[in-house]
């Protein structure tokens, strides 16, 4: 019975289920940004070809036109609350959600997106 219910549910909701990304093909920064147990930035931001992005934050592109330099972009990811105490963006560096090196890699990746 349980499995039947689950199956019905699954088929009905399958449009929203997440397909696995071929993460090996990505640069390290992209992998971290896309991976659910690392940056999981797609939960809130549309980024390039990322599937099923959330829309809590703005699409991440052309960041070199929105930030003066990489360091500023890094600050936003390190602790977004410094710029907006009411932000919904987690303080990735300050709360050690991802490591300092991982943030650098994400910055490198994002900076290159047109």
């Amino acid at each position, binding site marked *: 019975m349980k499995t039947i219910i689950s199956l019905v549910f699954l088929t009905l909701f399958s449009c929203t289920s997440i397909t696995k990304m071929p993460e090996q093909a990505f640069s390290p920064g992209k992998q971290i940004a896309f991976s659910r147990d690392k940056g999981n930035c797609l939960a809130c931001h549309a980024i390039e070809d990322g599937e099923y992005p959330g829309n809590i934050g703005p699409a991440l592109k052309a960041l070199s036109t929105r930030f003066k330099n990489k360091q500023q972009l890094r600050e936003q990811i390190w602790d977004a609350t410094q710029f907006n105490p009411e932000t919904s963006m*987690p303080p990735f560096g300050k709360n050690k959600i991802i490591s300092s090196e991982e943030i650098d890699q994400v910055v490198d990746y994002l900076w290159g997106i047109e």
Partner: protein
Amino acid sequence: MALDNRFQASMMHTDTTALIHTIDFLLMIPYPKKSAKLIMGNPLWRRLSLILISFLIALPLYATPKQDQAAFRKHYQLVFPQLKLADYANGVYAIDEIARQSWLAIEEFPPYETAIEEGKKLFNTAFSNGKHYAHCFPNKGIADEYPKWSKTQGEVITLAIAINNCRTSQHEPALPYEKADMVNLLAYLSHTSRGKPIHVTIPKNDPRAMSAYEQGKAFYYQRQGQLNFSCATCHIQNAGKKLRSEILSASLGHTSNWPTYRLKWGEIGSLHRRFAECLTQIKAEPLPEQSVEFRNLEYFLSYMGNGIPISGPSTRK
């Protein structure tokens, strides 16, 4: 003990956090990016006066739960002008049209049917002293009245606690909150209350009731966990937006549809189990079902939802 400390720490922190939330809330400012920069980028005297103004604006929120409720609803009215109060009983399916269709299909052969039947059986089974639950609950359809403030016990009594209080008064052992028997009883009592508008009261003649409400409210607005979110971050600030493929529901009506059969659980479970899961999601320490914190939180949320019909048991993804 550890939990007590955690809670006290959060209570101390709350004043300012809750305050900031409530200011934006009252002014209906959608959490402006600018305000922070405004405060930071200004000379000290301007910063201080901004903060002072904030305090003055926030004052009304310390007044009455009625005013909290009005502000809470006003916010959602602006975000979801198409919704009537009763619609909030359907959670995210009130605002996610695609998922709603699948959900309505599921509700035609609801997976919680057996839970209601099991609950009914339990409800009508005699205790060893020959009495029944009906001895404590002469009218079954009572889920809309809970949680209740108990003056004698000095705490918030949820329906689950009331069930166990009934059992112990009849010399039966208490039921574990997360196990099937308790959830099934709740499913039955919720089913017999369907359509009744939630009406939770905060008695004026006992200041402890007000304080329990305030603690529940503080918990709701408290940022916590490694991700540094409050309940409000997701369910107020971003209600209607998508977290990945998941549309975030309004907190209004969050207490009406319980217990709920969730695909993710593969079974029917309680409101407090859902609370715990949201805490785990933000990498905060989950609290046990029926902890004081969760009961106060339920008290606050139920009061916000007064007037919304009981829709439990229900189904959710």
